[in-house]
């Protein structure tokens, strides 16, 4: 039986009738058309579907849409400013070329935003360990780690100047 849920997605209130077995990523990519969130493994291993739920990184293939009732969701589409300017972490991934095919990138960026916001970037070893929920099968992670540090520095500058 469908459940009626209300959630905030990228600052917009969304009401939806949804079957309980629908995963959050299915709702985002399907009914809401937000295809920036990718499905890699679909079994909570790879992190490509990482989004923010109330500001915290979560794998959206491993959460039911009904569990997001009343919660606030941010996807990769919600990061840029309304004028289209990239979020500092997106800009850093672009600058550092922290990607090859780009499939894992939305999840990497969302995960990195949570990392900087709640834990900080203290050392290369800590960042590598903290990003272990996101798998890239193209690169050697060198540019990704570099991008996370550059994005962190830009995010912190933004916070200080705010």
């Amino acid at each position: 039986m469908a459940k009626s849920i209300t959630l905030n997605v990228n600052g917009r209130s969304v009401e939806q009738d949804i079957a309980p077995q629908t995963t959050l990523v299915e709702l985002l990519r399907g009914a809401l058309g937000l295809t920036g969130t990718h499905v890699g493994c679909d079994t909570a291993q790879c992190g490509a579907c990482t989004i923010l739920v109330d500001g915290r990184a979560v794998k959206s293939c491993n959460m039911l849409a009904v569990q997001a009732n009343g919660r606030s969701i941010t996807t990769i589409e919600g990061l840029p400013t309304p004028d289209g300017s990239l979020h500092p972490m997106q800009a850093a991934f672009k600058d550092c070329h922290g990607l090859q095919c780009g499939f894992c990138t939305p999840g990497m960026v969302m995960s990195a935003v949570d990392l900087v916001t709640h834990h900080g970037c203290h050392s290369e070893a800590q960042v590598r360990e903290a990003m272990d929920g996101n798998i890239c099968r193209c690169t050697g992670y060198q540019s990704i780690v570099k991008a996370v540090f550059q994005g962190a520095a830009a995010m912190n500058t933004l916070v200080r100047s705010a």
Partner: protein
Amino acid sequence: MQAFNYLASSSVAEASKAAAAGAKLIAGGQSLLPMMRLGFALPESLVDLALIAELKGIQVKGGVVRIGAMSTHAEVAASTEVKKAIPALADLAGKIGDRQVRNRGTLGGSLANADPAACYPAAALGLGATIHTNSRDIVADDFFKGLYETTLMDDELITAVSFPIPEKAGWQKFKQAASRFALVGVFVSKGPKGVRVAVTGAAGHVFRATHLEQRLATNYSAAALEGASVPAKGLSSDLHGSAEYRAALIPVLAARAVG
């Protein structure tokens, strides 16, 4: 995923009643949902515990850290109270799965699921914790019964866990890199419940390495474990490691956990 009914419960009593009628309880869902996706679990009804306020919260009082069952691993890892009282417990919580899993996974869910390689069962057994449910208190020594099997009844749900504050404690996990579970994990402590060495990942369920405990009881130091061995008989063997390999890891990790 197959269709099921879903109820976001607002009270322990309501959730217990639904569970008694056959519903499956969902906490963080980080193990249950993948099991359902793969068809290994096919519940007709799910009861979500996320909205039940009394299952949350962390208190330190009278030499005990009491943690609500629905506390996430991230909350326990970041808790200044837990970090101060039992740093090894915060350390363990902060190394479960990955950051995304820690933002959803819960203490109660981990213990109730009783995965043979999960981290929290080692902390519960290794600290001599008491598991509080809606109907009784269960000491960790009596809680784990087998592979994914606990002493919990159908209508019973974990409400909180009390961890006695030890003098010393340590946690070492030899991570299985793909699953991020413990290939072998060892939690050691010396405190009000004596010297305890709990091992996860090495058998059908978490167990105490009593032989190592005896050595540490007289001399709580890594040196006391030099030359110690654990028999491989009865331990798990799979493509990631043989029973002999797991047996060899146990005293090594125990010594590192003692520090």
